[in-house]
């Protein structure tokens, strides 16, 4: 019998991954088109966590909407709050006192560390390393304790208000933050000891999901993914906000733009965050914590776009005011949503097992993708 050519041809297999899949980090559903082990294409089905945040904004006052932004990227709630407050302050043309700015920087950087730690733990878990997740959560707990002592909540913090801060720092805040920094740096080395040289880790991550700098720009991908592709761009340096220009820090970059490089960039970023926190704690100015914000926030007619460097990438708020006490439109530019779009390009030609690694390395939070 001569071998039948059609017999050897494989038919395309369509596999549904998620929305209840532990490695999709929430409720992402990916429809995979497979040729055996190889992925031919993907199609993301979003919206399982859609709560209509932008619509909610139109039915709240400017101040009332503030706690809702925490619920988008709930891993980095403080960054979300900072972006929103900066956007409304821009509309109001409001100056924030130096003390408030410094405290904002400290808390957002602590939050960046917390977010990266959660990413590291879950990403390692996806790849098959169980231990890092316990260590990462242990250290993340320390940052959450600082948030809890500062503002009374751990996750959805509502820490900042338009115009400055609601809460003064608690007694021993500086000492506790410094202690965290001292404790944390050796821990990063410890994670690196576990993973960086590990042959399984390298085998699973090297040359997986490559995204070059040009492709990143084409897809609008920002954050650590962009920096891992060799583009030295960070909004904290490019367009400093909240007093970031006062602090000295580097932008870590890598060259290959593969999953391993994105891991290396995030590890370096945690160290840089510690550097920023140390400088900020050492130089918190005295003074008021609230700017001249009106009691009832009523920005003049107009619009503004303000963006910050959130742990996931560029987080932007496009706010439109019609002169009333309620926002006319609040548009959130979610980094996770736009980074996720590059998933298709990153996976193309890879294996099924790489899908999990690539979703993990993009560091998406579905609360932010679906809003």
């Amino acid at each position, binding site marked *: 019998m001569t071998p039948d050519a059609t017999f050897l041809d494989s038919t395309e297999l369509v596999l549904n991954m998620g929305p209840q899949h532990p490695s999709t980090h929430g409720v992402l559903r990916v429809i995979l088109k497979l040729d055996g082990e190889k992925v031919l294409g993907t199609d993301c089905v*979003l*919206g399982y966590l*859609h709560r*209509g945040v*932008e*619509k909610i904004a*139109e*039915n709240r006052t400017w101040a009332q909407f503030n706690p809702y932004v925490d619920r988008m990227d709930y891993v980095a709630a403080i960054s979300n709050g900072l972006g929103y407050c900066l956007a409304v302050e*821009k*509309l109001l*043309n409001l100056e924030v006192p130096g003390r408030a700015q410094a405290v904002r920087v400290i808390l957002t950087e602590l939050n960046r560390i917390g977010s990266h730690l959660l990413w590291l733990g879950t990403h390692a878990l996806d790849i098959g390393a169980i231990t890092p997740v316990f260590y990462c959560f242990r250290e993340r707990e320390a940052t959450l304790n600082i948030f809890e002592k500062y503002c009374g909540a751990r996750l959805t913090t509502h820490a900042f208000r338009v115009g400055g801060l609601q809460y003064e720092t608690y007694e021993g805040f500086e000492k506790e933050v410094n202690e965290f920094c001292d404790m944390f740096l050796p821990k990063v080395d410890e994670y690196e000891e576990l993973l960086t040289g590990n042959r399984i880790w390298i085998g699973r991550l090297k040359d997986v999901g490559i995204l070059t700098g040009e492709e990143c*720009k*084409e*897809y*609008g991908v920002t954050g650590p993914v962009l920096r891992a592709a060799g*583009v030295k*761009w960070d909004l904290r340096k*490019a*367009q400093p906000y909240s007093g970031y220009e006062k602090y000295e820090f580097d932008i870590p970059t890598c060259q290959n733009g593969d999953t391993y490089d994105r891991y290396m960039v995030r590890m370096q970023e945690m160290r840089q965050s510690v550097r920023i926190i140390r400088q900020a704690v050492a130089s918190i100015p005295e003074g008021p914590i609230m700017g001249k914000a009106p009691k009832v926030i009523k920005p*003049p007619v*107009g*619009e*503004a*776009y303000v*963006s910050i460097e959130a742990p996931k990438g*560029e987080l*932007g708020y*496009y706010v*439109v005011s019609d002169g009333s006490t309620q926002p*006319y*439109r609040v*548009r959130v*530019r979610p980094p996770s*949503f*736009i980074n996720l*779009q590059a998933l298709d390009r990153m996976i193309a030609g890879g294996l099924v097992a790489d899908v999990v690694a690539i979703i993990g390395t993009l560091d998406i939070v579905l609360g932010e993708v*679906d*809003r």
Partner: protein
Amino acid sequence: MAATPWDSELARELKERFGDRIIETSTYLGQNFIVTKPDAAIPVLEYLKLEADFDYLVDVTAVDWPKRPERFDLVYIVYSFARNERVRIKTYLPEGFKPESSVGVHLTANWLEREVYDMFGIQFAGHPDLRRILMPDEWQGHPLRKDYSILRQDQTWVRENLEIESGQ
């Protein structure tokens, strides 16, 4: 404080090149924006990308003004890594107008335009895959339009698919 004219090399170049298809070049709160006629948005985006290094499309979004004859603002935000500069491009669209898709210029626009379609019902001509993205495919209505209130949401879909009365 009102928007002031945006005086720069780039604004002059754009005006020279596109003439009266550019309605306004202004600055508000230190942020520059261009208002173009609906058919000029894509050529302007293309020009900015190829000739002026605005190679990163930050966001595409819309704003609904139901009382205006041109009902929607369609807003593109672009950024240039080389110049470290951000520009907003705005067009005013009447209801039912189908603007050209910008996916040909920036790949990022694919999902962003799908979201604008989903939320506002603006159909983009020439979009490769114009489906709803956040709402379910069979959903009726476009949530971010101003005349779409929470009480007027698609009750039928909720009843049929979730087997609950809406509002629970």
